């Protein structure tokens, strides 16, 4: 990501840029990897202090989480640990696959100046549709079946997010409120679909609030590990491809140019003949498509079915926010961010075998670290803008910069 954006606006009068995307453009120029790395380190440090304060050794806890995520695989090419480590790593990458796409769902909207909190809801809609399409048409040959399910779920995600985009474009309704509401609507839709007598409830057993299983033909092939043991499916490569697509759309197409222009400064973009409303809608829809695709890959890749009780537990859509913010809404950043959170997600829960820290504690540590990352990233935008302002203001007014920093 070169960051050489054609229309990066100069910071005017040292004031904070008006849009989120403007802030991000500022951050692009104001330092490379340092700030996100420091942000993450600081979050881990504070998380470690919480661990320490509650009577556990944070260093050992982090080591166990590291191993739980299978990241020790690289150190053990031949020893007997390798099987566990390889399995854990494959599971981490499984989480990474989902997080890449959920991160992109947030990042794309950010680049258009919008905050898509609705990744979770769009992901759910993708899951539901993939489950429905994957269960229906049983007996179809695998390739078209998978394609139908994936495309259907992706479109559904796009439509779901598109509602928020349309409302923003047509009436100015703030996307944060509308995506939060759409999240909860999606959650209740799921409760109804898989619940007692719901349309997608298991046809064979009407007593459990769980969906049908996706037909064998619609399941994604597994390339690392075994299908029964939730091996890593080819969706991983789809997610990697999505990163490339994300970069291509934003940097090599007219659509991406317009989206970014609207993100930097809607008024200027409108003045330049770009339809703001159209691009707000398109950006939200593309965001939703990424999240819907995440749902499809999860459903066809390893979940195969979904239940009422799974719905409140899922938080990948929200983790996508941390991934995107930490990754500065760039393709490479999202990849790195989702590796980090993928490792945390699996390493703190199922992969963790530790007598230092219990998985339930460590699992919540992930949320704490996630919260801290988002909190610091939100502020570092501002710290950097103050830093920028100071650079500009230095010759004439030192007190102003000092006052702004206080």
């Amino acid at each position, binding site marked *: 990501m070169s960051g050489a954006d054609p229309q990066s606006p100069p910071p005017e009068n040292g004031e904070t840029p008006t849009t989120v995307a403007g802030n991000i453009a500022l951050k692009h120029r104001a330092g490379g990897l340092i700030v996100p790395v420091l942000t993450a380190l600081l979050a881990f440090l504070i998380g470690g202090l*919480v661990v320490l304060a509650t009577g556990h050794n944070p260093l050992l806890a982090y080591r166990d989480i590291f191993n739980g995520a299978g990241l020790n695989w690289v150190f053990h090419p031949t020893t007997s640990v390798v099987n566990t480590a390889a399995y854990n790593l494959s599971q981490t990458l499984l989480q990474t696959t989902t997080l890449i796409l959920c991160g992109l769902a947030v990042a794309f909207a950010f680049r258009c100046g919008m905050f898509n909190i609705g990744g979770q809801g769009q992901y759910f809609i993708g899951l539901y549709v993939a489950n429905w399409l994957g269960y229906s048409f049983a007996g179809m040959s695998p390739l078209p079946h998978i394609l139908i399910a994936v495309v259907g779920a992706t479109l559904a995600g796009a439509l779901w997010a598109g509602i928020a985009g349309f409302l923003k474009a047509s009436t100015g309704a703030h996307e944060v409120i*509308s995506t939060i509401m759409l999240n909860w609507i999606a959650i209740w839709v799921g409760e109804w679909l898989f*619940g007692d007598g719901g349309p997608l409830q298991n046809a064979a057993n009407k007593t459990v609030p769980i969906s049908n299983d996706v037909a064998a033909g619609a399941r994604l092939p597994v390339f690392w590990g075994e299908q029964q043991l939730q091996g890593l499916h080819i969706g991983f490569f789809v997610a990697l491809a999505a990163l490339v697509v994300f970069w291509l759309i934003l940097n090599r197409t007219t659509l991406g140019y317009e989206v970014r222009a609207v993100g930097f400064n809607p008024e200027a973009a409108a003045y330049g003949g770009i339809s703001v409303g159209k691009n707000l809608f398109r950006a939200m829809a593309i965001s939703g498509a990424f999240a819907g695709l995440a749902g499809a890959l999860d459903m066809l890749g390893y979940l195969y079915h979904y239940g009422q009780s799974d719905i409140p537990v899922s938080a990948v859509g929200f983790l996508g926010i941390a991934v995107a913010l930490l990754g500065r809404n760039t393709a490479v950043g999202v990849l790195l961010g989702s590796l980090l959170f993928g490792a945390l997600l699996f390493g703190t829960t199922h992969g963790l075998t530790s007598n230092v820290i219990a998985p339930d504690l460590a699992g919540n540590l992930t949320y704490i670290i996630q919260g801290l990352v988002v909190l610091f990233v939100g502020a570092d935008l501002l710290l950097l803008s103050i830093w920028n302002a100071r650079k500009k203001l230095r010759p004439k007014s030192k007190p102003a910069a000092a006052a702004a920093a206080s």
Partner: protein
Amino acid sequence: MTVWGGRLDNPVSAQLRDPATTGYVGLGLGVFAAFLGIPPIEARSIVWSILVGIVAAMLGVWTATRGRLRLGIGAVLMGLAGVGLGVLATRSGTGNLETVFNSSLIAQMFAFSTPLVFGAIAGMFSERSGVVNIGLEGMMLMGAFWGVYGADVGGSWVVGLIVGAASGGLLALLYAYFAIHLRADQIVGGTAVNFLALGITGYFFFQLYHGNYVSQGVSTIPNVHLPVISGMRFLGPAIGDLNLMIWAGFALVIVSYIVVFKTPIGLRIRACGEHPRAADTVGINVYAVRYGAVVLSGLLAALGGVYLSDGFGGGTFNDNMTAGRGFIALAAMIFGNWRPFGAFGAALLFGLSSAVALRLQVYSASASTLFNVLPYVLTLVAVAGVIGRTVPPAADGKPYVRQ
């Protein structure tokens, strides 16, 4: 463009933006709700009358908080009357209606709406001072856990209230520092607060209780037993034995109305939310007012959370106990147009919707879902601003830079 209320010019919605439209539609729906139960429609399920009636009442709240007070109140009453008449009409012949719709439903409505009342009033204080508070959910969750912990360890629900409120206040203070001093994006910051609270409460719930239930016999917030009223036929089950926090919620609405609109402090808060520069010019310390309002917001939201765990929940806690109530509270605040009574009305109707949903679960899962999802759908329609008007404080969500 304000944070919530930015709006593009649109000829269609301009026609509908007069709040009178929603008022008349509400009145019409209220009448319709009453007629649903009788021929020629003769719906055999009470679901439809209640649903249409609640929608009518919501439209009434919407209208009343946007300048057409009398028309709005009329629509609310018509909506509620529509529910009553519709239910009376369908009542004949179906046996189990009695268990769904009786006077204890009113008590249950209050029980469900109280966390929302506290949350919505909390959000109103913060946003009236110019700080958007998406973190209500997290602050409420903090109150829910630390409140029950305080009651457990301190041995008294009073300690629980204090500890719970303090935990929400502390989280709000952290948020205020980032939002006000560091001028962080308030929506990103609020989202972070929600994650943090989820992590902190989950972590300490496991650390302190090993993820099991809080031990039995925690001192819980008591109910207020009204000696005469509780014996009455209708009022008894409805308001004779409500939790103390429900009454506190009623008082909070009245007090916050007086504070915000009738006192100098309220004027200052509103000035900071509408035009911080002007407020600063006349000598109001914008940062101090905003800090105060955000911390107050955290305290109040957390009290709603304490009620959830130590009042309504009877001294229990479970992971992510608030389950989105903070967001419904936020929605109620927006629906009520950043006004105490508007927020209260919206919270009551959202609470009614949840109470009906709970009762219908036994009979029809899909009808139950319909009522659960209703607040979100109505809010979505409302913020779209196609009808009526949402007027947030002008400087809501904008960091203020001292000069």
